[in-house]
């Protein structure tokens, strides 16, 4: 038997509305500062001219995208109409491959070491995490001072009787240092994720392995890595997303040089939209649209991977 109290319906309605009251401020902020700019960017990508306001910009359809994608051979930027875009695309791809694989490797090694009972474990965890707290600009400036011609590294090299080198002056070495500095700056964050994963692995599995006299390598490959896989996937995808978005650190450290050896997609977008005298906002927006597509793809990979991992866990 149900009893209808007067005022029950309005109270239920109010209860249903309550979450929206809490969500509204966030929705407004997200709408204004995230979704609106995304929409405007989307619109700009299909307009031309140099005017700033959308209403003054002529619609050009896919022209901006066609300009960016116009290439004789996409693997050879010199055959592309916008060679700098393709140089940036391939640099970003190269960075993603090197940075992600090395980041995962070093983060894993660091997490494994920091998970052991070593002397001063808390201190070492702090040391590895500390660079994450620094602003990317500070990180880049510190390393610039170390790597410049009269920097600390060359002073050390000269002190040891070696010849000072232009560490950021050659394409190969500049790229190496970009990867190195990025790993140094963000390693702590990924190590922390892996450390959390390692600590969630039940200790009795290792005890059982010990009783079975499993070798350390077998323990790592048969217990640690399979159980750490969900965390490794998260690290891989997050590192890849970060690599694709690289800008501030590299812009301060190398300015995209030498030549365009460390120019990545975001810098190309920034240059096209804000550094040239004639600002091609439409082309810059089209570039960021392509970048967004890459990021969406990576995010989907992450979602699919984490769902697969969750399904695997449930099946176990």
């Amino acid at each position, binding site marked *: 038997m149900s009893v209808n109290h007067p005022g029950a319906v309005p109270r239920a309605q109010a209860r249903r509305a309550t979450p929206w009251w809490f969500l509204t401020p966030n929705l407004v902020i997200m709408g204004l500062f995230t979704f609106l700019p995304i929409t405007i960017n989307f619109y700009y990508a299909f307009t*031309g*001219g*140099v*005017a*700033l*306001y959308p209403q003054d910009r*002529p619609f050009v359809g896919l022209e901006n995208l066609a300009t960016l994608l116009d290439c004789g051979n996409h693997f050879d930027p*010199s055959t592309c109409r916008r*060679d*700098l875009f393709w140089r940036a695309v391939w640099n970003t791809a190269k960075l993603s491959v090197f940075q992600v694989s090395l980041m995962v490797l070093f983060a894993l090694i660091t997490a494994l070491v920091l998970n052991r009972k070593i002397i001063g474990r808390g201190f070492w965890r702090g040391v590895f995490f500390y660079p994450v707290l620094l602003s990317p600009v500070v990180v880049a400036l510190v390393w610039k001072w170390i790597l410049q*011609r*009269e920097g600390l590294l060359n002073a050390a090299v000269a002190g040891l009787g070696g010849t000072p080198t*232009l560490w*950021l*002056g050659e*394409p190969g070495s500049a790229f190496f240092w970009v990867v190195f500095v990025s790993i140094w700056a963000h390693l702590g964050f990924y190590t922390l994720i892996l450390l959390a994963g390692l600590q969630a692995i039940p200790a009795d599995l290792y005890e059982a392995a010990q009783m079975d006299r499993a070798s350390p390598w077998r323990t790592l490959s048969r217990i640690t890595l399979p159980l750490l896989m969900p965390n490794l996937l998260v690290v891989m995808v997050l590192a890849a997303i970060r690599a694709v978005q690289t800008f501030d650190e590299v812009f301060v450290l*190398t*300015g*995209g*040089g*030498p*030549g*365009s*050896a*460390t*120019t990545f997609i975001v*810098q190309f977008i920034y*240059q096209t939209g*804000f*550094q*040239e*005298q*004639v*600002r*091609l906002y439409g082309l810059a927006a089209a570039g960021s649209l392509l970048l967004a597509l890459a990021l969406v793809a990576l995010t989907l990979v992450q979602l699919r991977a984490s769902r697969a991992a969750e399904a695997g866990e449930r099946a176990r």
Partner: protein
Amino acid sequence: MTLVRFSAVALAAAFLAAPLMAQELRVQCYSDGNECEVTGDIAKRFEAANAGTKIIIDKVPYKAVVEQLPVQLAAGEGPDIARVTDLGGLNKYYLDLTPHLSAARAKAWADNFSSTLPWFRNGAADKGIYGLMSQLTVTGAYVNKTLFEQAKVPMPAAGASWDDWMAAADKVAKATKVPFAMAMDRSGHRFAPLAVAYGAKIFDANGTPVVDAGYQAAAKKFVDWHKAGLMPKEVWGGVGGSQYRDAFEEFANGRVVVYYSGSWQLKRMDTQVTKAFDWAVAPAPCGPAACTAMPGGAAFVGLKRTKQPALVAKFLDFLSEDGNYRELMAKTENIPASLSVAKAGVTYNVSAMAKAGLNAFVADVPKIAKANFDLQGYRLNRAVFLPTAQRLGQAVAGEMSTEDALKRLASDMDEQVKAASK
């Protein structure tokens, strides 16, 4: 009741007077040395002479003026006055001061700044008065005299070519074990005099910028100097994009014998280098076509978006008055753009070396080639300068051949000019 009435009248008077009292101008200013501070000092006198006015000098980095100000202005925002270097490119945002100046003052502007007023204008038909050159600059070569003396190599005389200078500087570098003979700021503006010296006309018959044979010859020479190790690769090749990078530190640290930059570095030279070694400014190096420097500079411009155009004009006019302008030039150690101030002379409180340097720069002014004057006054000159830094930088870094870099440079310039005309 009397008190209430009195209060009401006082309140009404205060409301009416408020707009008159709150006459505030914001001046966005970047500084190469002490330009903003000196302008601030002069602004205080303006405030004293014009009760109720307030001039606020917002000191910003150069990057903000180059990259953020144009976006602000396009969005209808920004300061009342700004110190800019893209003199012709921002023309559509400028306030024409003419209607706010008396006939006598307008004539004084036209007479005193006849050589630089066209740089702000949009074509020959435009007769507006838009800005005041706060700094007239001339490019030129700084020479480490001490190294020349140590190496016992005579300094090339006036009329010497770029090659003569490079050969002499190389001799000095080798004798004194200095790593490089010469360095040039990473800027298309700095490259322009070398290009014109080698015969570049910069513009075709239609007034469109072109990468002609002279420009190409200079670019090839320039990249070859880098390849030969005569110039430090890290200045032009070490940075990406079209970013500016000066080579002052290389010169100040004694790593290059000759440094091609400009008159705006005089103050830094005097304060940071004079104590370390003797330096001098060489006469404009020559090429087969000309011995030329490149003019340039920064200017205070009134902006159309201001709500107080008359006050903007009044303040800029105050700055342009001979006494104030002379003070601005003397304290900032800059070359005057005002003919009357230049004629009367400016007393600079600087070292003998800096004084000689200033004289050398001033002596180069009459020799500036027309192409360089035209380029400085060209509305889209940064569409020439920026791709030059970008593409020649790539060639210097070894990323592409000079020929390919020049082809890309031509297409970049063409694309920018076409986009601007849409």
